[in-house]
Every structure is written in C-alpha cells, then in structure tokens.
C-alpha cells in the first residue's frame, strides 16, 4: 500500500510531483492509524506553508491530528470533495483522498523526502 513514484515524508504524507506543482495527501499507513476521518480542515488557497509546517487538521471520531507539508510552497488548490466526503481519505488515500496541491518553492527540497522503498522501511521499523 505504498505506491512507487510518489515521495514520502516521515510524518506520513505523500507528494506526487508534476512540473512545478505537487499534490499532497496522507499515506495508507497514516489513514489506518487515524481511523475513520470525519472532518477535514483544509488550508486557504493562496496561503503559504513551509516544509514540515501544519497544512491543516484531520479529525477522526477520537481525535484531531495535524497534517504537514512535505515541502515549502503556496497552496494552489484543495480537494473540494473532502468536506462532504472525508471518508475518501480512508478509502482512496492516494487518489480521490488527496488534500492539497502546492506550487513548490524549491524542487531541491524533494531530495530530502523518502522513496517508496525507504518509506516502507520506516513504517516497518515503527513495529506496525
């Protein structure tokens, strides 16, 4: 459940880069740990975020958790489907459950992220 071709953060977000922009979501592993998502707080389009900074909040029945930006950039789009269907994050974390699209400040930041292989190592080391 860790697709190839995406880059991963240690905070369990993924980013799929195409040109100057990247689409961000949380991983299958993260949605599983969170449980059913019942509310999503998305950032404002046009707002700026630094790598590692909170982009917004996901709430499960039990608790609220921040999700973080894997890179610095400007928010150019948010997933408008999520407010009405937050369960998409559980059901299709890499597809219809995406959260935010960013315009990257510095593509070199991507080098610090994990490949699918490294991310699998990370979550295996977590001891599940």
């Amino acid at each position, binding site marked *: 459940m860790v697709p190839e071709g995406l880059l991963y953060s240690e905070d369990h977000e993924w980013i799929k880069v195409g040109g100057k922009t990247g689409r961000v979501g949380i991983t299958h592993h993260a949605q599983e740990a969170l*449980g059913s998502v*019942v*509310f999503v*707080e998305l950032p404002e389009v046009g707002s700026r975020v630094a790598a590692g900074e909170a982009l917004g*909040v996901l709430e499960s*029945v*039990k*608790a*609220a958790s921040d999700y973080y930006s894997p890179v610095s950039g400007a928010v150019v789009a948010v997933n408008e489907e999520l*407010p009405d269907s937050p369960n998409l994050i559980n059901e299709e974390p890499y597809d219809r459950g995406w959260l935010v699209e960013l315009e990257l400040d510095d593509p070199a930041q991507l080098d610090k992220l994990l490949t699918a292989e490294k991310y699998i190592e990370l979550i295996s080391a977590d001891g599940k």
Partner: protein
Amino acid sequence: MEENIKKTPLYQLHLAAGAKMIDFGGWLMPVQYRDILEEHRCVRERVGLFDVSHMGEITVSGPGAQRLVQQLITNDIAPMDDGRVLYSPMCNNAGGVVDDILVYRLLADSYMLVVNAANAAKDLAWVREHNRGDADITDVSGETALLALQGPRALDVLRPLAGFDPEALKYYRFLNGEVAGKRCLVSRTGYTGEDGFELYIDPDHAARVWQAIMEEGGIHGIMPVGLGARDTLRFEAALPLYGHELDEDITPLEAGLGRFVRLRKDFFNGIQALRDQSRQGLSRRLAGLSMEERGIPRAGYPVIIEGRRQGRVTSGTHCPTLGGSFAMAYVPPEVREGDGVEISIRGKNCKARVVSLPFFKKGGNK
C-alpha cells in the same frame, strides 16, 4: 511505567482479534478492533461485546456497611432490595464529585461498589477513610473480570447461554447465575444507551465466556467493541464520563444528575454544600450543543456567548448515529434550549445551538 501497566485476562484475545491497544487508567485496553464507526453502529443496530475489566470493584460488608455507603453516596440505598443496582455520584464535602459509581446490594449488610478504573485507588482510600471500623472493605478488582454485552440483540445472544431467564432480569437488577457454564454476577446495566447486560466473572473464566458469547453472537452479527466506540455510544446517550463531565470541582447538580441526589437524606458527604447550591441556584449547568457549522468540538474548547468566553466543552465528537457533531459543555444557567452560541475551534468561532440532552434516546425520534 511499562511494567506497571495492567492487562485484563482477555489481553491475548484482543491482540489475536487485531485490536489497537492503548493505556487507559493504567490498563492496556482495546480502543478499537477494526473501526470505531463500525463498532458503534454494530451496538446500535445489533450487538457488541466489550471488555471493561479495568473497572474497579470494592466490596463493603459488615454491620456498618449500610451506614458507610449511605454516607458516601448522594443517592439512597435505604429502599433497595437484594438484587438491585443503583447509580450514584460519590461526593466530597464541597459537593464535588469524587467518582460516579454503581452500588450492588449483595445482601442487607453487603454491597459491591463499581468504580472508574482511573479513580480506583483514590476511591478505595476514600472509602477506607470514612470507615468507622465496623465495615470490611475489600478491593476485589483483581479477582473480577467484567464483560459488557450491549445492543438490541444482547438478549438473544445471552438467552441460549444463560442458566437463567435473562428476559426476567429487569433494568438495574442483577442475579448470580451461570453463563456458558461459568458462575457470574449478571446485571441489566450498561454504558451505551442500549439494552444490555454486564457480567462480573472470575478472571480465569473470562476468556471462555468471551469466546462462547462471540460464537453464539455470530448469527446476530456481534463484534468486539473497543473503548473508542464505548465513548461515542455513551456520549450520544449523554452518560457522563469522569474527568470530562464530572470531577472534584463539579457538583452533580451542575452535571444534571439531580435525580441521583437525595437532599432529604439525613446525611451524606457534601449534603450541606448541595443543599445550599440547590437553594441558591446554579452558576453553571451541563448543556448539549449541536454544531451548525462544520468542525468537531473537543474537550476544553471555549464556549463563546455574546462574544465572551462563558463556558467550556467537556466532551465532543462526531456522532455516528446522529450524523453531525455535538458537544456537552458547561454554560451559564440562563442559557436556554434553542439559543445560539459559538464554540472556538482552533481559534475560529463556529456556530452551535443549544439542544436537549440526551442527543440519542432508545426508541426516541432524535
């Protein structure tokens, strides 16, 4: 810390069932097996089985038992027959809640107090402190496992396993009987807002009885249910949770538990403070709030009325049965049902409306 954490006799079964375990009140407990929402719905629509062995049990017996229990609790055990269960706050002298407990009248001079896990040590000390030497007080938590079978089909699951007629056991009564061939104390009680039973049992027999219930419940769609759904279920039914709606600085009158406070009793700890409060009126009360904007209120969030912080949320969540987000909160007493208020959610004021409690009532139209 790790070494001191307690495990229930069903710990291995929970792991085998894929439960996610958390530390709750010093116990390693299942918070969910598969999914909180699914487990919640299963209890509302069918039946669920909970391990709540972390709850504490204290027996009080001997010639001074009745007087001691009467002093400790705000409710009245005088009219109780054997086989009755009573819910009651247990207050300090200021009227604040030390714990909220169940009292089982085992015999005329013998009672079992069922207390919250996180308060068990404090409660035991509290009960002992009030003993005048004529009651025997024993912590039997270590010899007592507790299973809760809850939901509209609980009766159907229990009937073929019970050595008695569970249908004849009325609400808030108990009996000593056999389930799956093992002796246990069974009461018609629970913490979900549904019909159901709680089974107090020898820890050595707990796994056997758990498995028998899960097997028998198969045709009824039974699921094991964790503390996560236990919390959303009790929340919808507006059953207070100690540490949230109740604590040592909150009185049962403020918490809306006046029907469990017998101010005409001769004496109990806190009676004077509660009589005064009853006469003078409350300075805050527990209210239900329904969110009118998106956002989930959580414990501790401020309640804003007319632009000023005038209350705080004690519990809040997305309610699976009701489909929406709700909160319980302490608000000024003049706040009325239907009033509009705001809840500050991460710095943003979100609109909510005051509604009656409970949010969910069995057979109700809400």
